[in-house]
């Protein structure tokens, strides 16, 4: 298992005026006009953390309303706006930009590139988002209130949205433009900017999963754009795409939306798979088990994600053959996903493991994401889904894969690479407090929702039958505690960046391998101006 990276000893930069660690001193130059992948990565991460708390506060409103049966705090319409906006913000504003932020920071360093392939477009990808989300959030203050038809924007309900409707559609368009440009940049970077010797099957898993994620994004964001464009023309320009009287079909929207929506869930989880595949080997002090099969499993999951969409709409009235096809196709996904979980467990098997905070979050991910995967298998059974559909069981399922799934992986990634980004070690004590309270409260929050759903409690309704009271109260208490716990995270990050006295070494972790760990902590503003030559397996995950 040899790792050899040759650093050419002559350092030069291409245009001669930006040496080494020279950052623009002017605030606008540094952040508004930046073309630096590290700064843009930081902007993405700060933006997504902000959105995480805005979306999270909406979740707090939802859980507060559901604390007891009866209408307590907010009007039903505002409750619907909260569920809709919570989802839109968390999906497009928190999770996706956070992954793009890590992609920006890490991919050039992992493949030995001087920057992203198209640095100016990289800036634009980011700087569309604050405008898009300002427009989206501003709808809450319009006379009609924000969108209230659920993030899936199903017609005909969504067509009854008032003033805010067109603003929501255009906000979605802007998010799509941002995602497509960001993904094109990532693909061009990975295909075109790898250091000599960084063959495709030597790339770190995070790079691989992002390559496939970027492909998914370019394939499906235009589909979402088309879907919301049809909504817009149905609302304002008298088309009849989703009007049966004119020969259209409201169910057609669901098909188009979920053709986007199902790959979208993998867009949020594949980079998480990549991160977990980076972290587990480090703290197990073993190479990743089954590197090649991980790559193929990821590609297989991406392929399957295009042909399973209608499992989101089993109860809508499809022909029986359709229901059966989508059931079996959906179940196929458990095969490559199972390969991944098996490989992660095998990576840890007989490793000399230590349990620093990133490792704790990674193990938490493997266990809790798998629970979400298994409830997904239950939902895939068409006949059973007629009972589960649109209940809290579905809510529990996708929150298990997204919160202790994607979000835990984001936390793990933050703890794992933050010392590299900042040059300082975070507080291990507070990191562990953050992990354990998150891990406990996320289960208090979401586990009871399985029972609520199996007992028939519908989602997206602000009131419920008194029989559901106990589990709802437990879930809400867990929700408040989980939300408060995330303030610890902010404290740990700020402390690490500005207060921590413990300096990080270039390797940071004893078992870390890969090009980013050959750079200083923090790395120079411009790293790898001259590409390193990667001989043997610099990756050292595959052998």
């Amino acid at each position, binding site marked *: 298992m040899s790792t050899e990276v040759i650093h*050419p000893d002559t350092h*030069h930069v*291409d*245009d001669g005026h*930006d040496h080494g660690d020279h950052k*623009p001193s002017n605030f606008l*130059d540094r952040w*508004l*006009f930046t*073309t630096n992948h590290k700064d843009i990565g930081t902007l993405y991460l700060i933006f997504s953390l902000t959105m995480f708390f805005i979306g999270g506060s909406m979740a707090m409103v939802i859980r507060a309303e559901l604390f007891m049966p009866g209408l307590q705090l907010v009007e039903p319409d505002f409750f619907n706006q909260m569920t809709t906006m919570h989802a839109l913000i968390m999906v497009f504003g928190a999770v996706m930009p956070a992954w793009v932020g890590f992609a920006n920071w890490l991919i050039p360093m992992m493949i030995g590139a*001087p920057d992203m392939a*198209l*640095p*100016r*477009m990289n*800036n*634009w990808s980011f*700087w569309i988002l604050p*405008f898009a989300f*300002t*427009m989206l959030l501003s709808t809450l203050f319009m006379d009609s209130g924000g969108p209230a038809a659920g993030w899936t924007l199903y017609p005909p309900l969504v067509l009854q949205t008032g*003033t805010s409707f*067109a*603003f929501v559609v*255009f906000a979605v368009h*802007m998010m799509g*433009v941002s995602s497509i440009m960001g*993904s*094109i*940049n990532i*693909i*061009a*970077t990975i295909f*075109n*900017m790898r250091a000599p010797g960084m063959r495709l099957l030597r790339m770190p898993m995070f790079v691989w999963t992002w390559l496939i994620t970027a492909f998914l994004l*370019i394939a499906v964001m*235009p*589909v979402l754009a*088309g879907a919301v*464009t*049809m909504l817009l*023309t149905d609302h304002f*320009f*008298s*088309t*009849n*795409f989703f009007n*049966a*009287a*004119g*020969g*259209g*079909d409201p169910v*057609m929207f669901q098909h*188009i939306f979920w*053709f986007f929506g199902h790959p979208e869930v993998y867009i949020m989880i594949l980079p998480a798979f990549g991160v977990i595949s980076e972290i587990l080997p480090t703290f197990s002090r073993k190479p990743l088990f089954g590197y090649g099969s991980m790559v193929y499993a990821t590609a297989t999951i991406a392929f399957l994600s295009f042909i399973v969409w209608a499992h989101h709409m089993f109860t809508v*009235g499809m*022909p029986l053959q359709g229901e059966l096809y989508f059931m079996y196709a959906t179940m196929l996904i458990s095969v490559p996903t199972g390969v991944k979980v098996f490989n992660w467990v095998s990576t840890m098997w007989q490793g000399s493991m230590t349990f620093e905070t990133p490792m704790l979050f990674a193990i938490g991910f493997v266990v809790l994401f798998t629970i979400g995967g298994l409830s997904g298998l239950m939902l895939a059974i068409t006949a059973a889904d007629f009972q589960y559909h649109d209940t809290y069981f579905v809510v529990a399922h996708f929150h298990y894969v997204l919160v202790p799934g994607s979000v835990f992986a984001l936390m793990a990634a933050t703890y794992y690479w933050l010392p590299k980004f900042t040059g300082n070690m975070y507080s291990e004590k507070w990191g562990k407090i953050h992990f354990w309270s998150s891990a406990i409260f996320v289960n208090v929050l979401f586990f009871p929702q399985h029972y609520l759903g199996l007992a028939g409690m519908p989602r997206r309704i602000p009131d419920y039958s008194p029989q559901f009271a106990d589990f709802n109260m437990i879930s809400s208490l867990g929700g408040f505690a989980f939300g408060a716990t995330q303030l610890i995270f902010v404290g740990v990050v700020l402390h690490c960046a500005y207060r921590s006295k413990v300096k990080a070494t270039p390797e940071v972790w004893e078992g870390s391998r890969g090009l980013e760990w050959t750079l200083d902590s923090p790395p120079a503003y411009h790293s790898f*101006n*001259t590409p390193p030559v990667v001989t043997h397996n610099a990756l050292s995950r595959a052998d």
Partner: protein
Amino acid sequence: MATHAENSYYVPHGSKWPIVGSLGMITMLASAAGWMNGSATAQWTFWLGAAILIFMLFGWFGTVIRESEAGMYSEQVSGSFRLSMSWFIFSEVMFFAVFFGALFYVRALVIPWLGGEGTGASTNEFLWQGYTPAWPTSGPANVGGDFQTIPAFGIPFLNTLILLTSGLTVTLAHHALKKEHRNQLVLWLAATVALGFTFVYFQVYEYHEAYTQLGLTLGSGIYGATFFMLTGFHGMHVTLGAIMLVVIMIRSMKGHFKPDNHFAFEAVAWYWHFVDVVWLGLFVFVYIL
């Protein structure tokens, strides 16, 4: 280690164009939303936003063209541009796929179901008894009223010939560029531009006919919706492609591009072939079938 462009990757340091683009985009789109809601001022701010976006495009592309002509781009930078353009066109393919998908879904499933086919679908029985499925249709409620369709082998067929010919002329221009025949290059590009705008002219003429003579409008049921959205988005792409062709024609007249280095030309040519292929799909599935 060498320090000139051929051996290092050009990383620009700072640019004000992206944020200008964002400001233009938000001004334009927020105004578009306001306009749709009936705001009078938004009509004007919409054009302001569009103007900012156009200003950004001139500034940004101008910068890139100057850098390119100054020889700052290595072969590797060119590779990034090529990859990006290819994947951008792929995203455009997916955008058109949505509207084609809607057309196929409606024709293969929705219309027969509305006519009472299939097991378990009772819309026909309860809501629209007596509706006979057919294509073209404006639906069981005849939304938008009766209309006639545009015959495929009139102007649409002429337009097919025009676009196919323009695909040929742009290729001839490419060969002229590779052989350094500057006059032929400009000539063939001019022919392509002329064919492109002729196509757009015929489309506008056809739309006028549809609205004034045939009763076919955007509101003519699902047929009008799919017809105008597919041909309309395609027409916008042809217009954009023709403008791009004008840009590279002017650049060719200024002496830009080398036989072995002319990414912008190729990007526009790829884009032009892409709108050509989309048209063939439209001609077959929208006009003929």
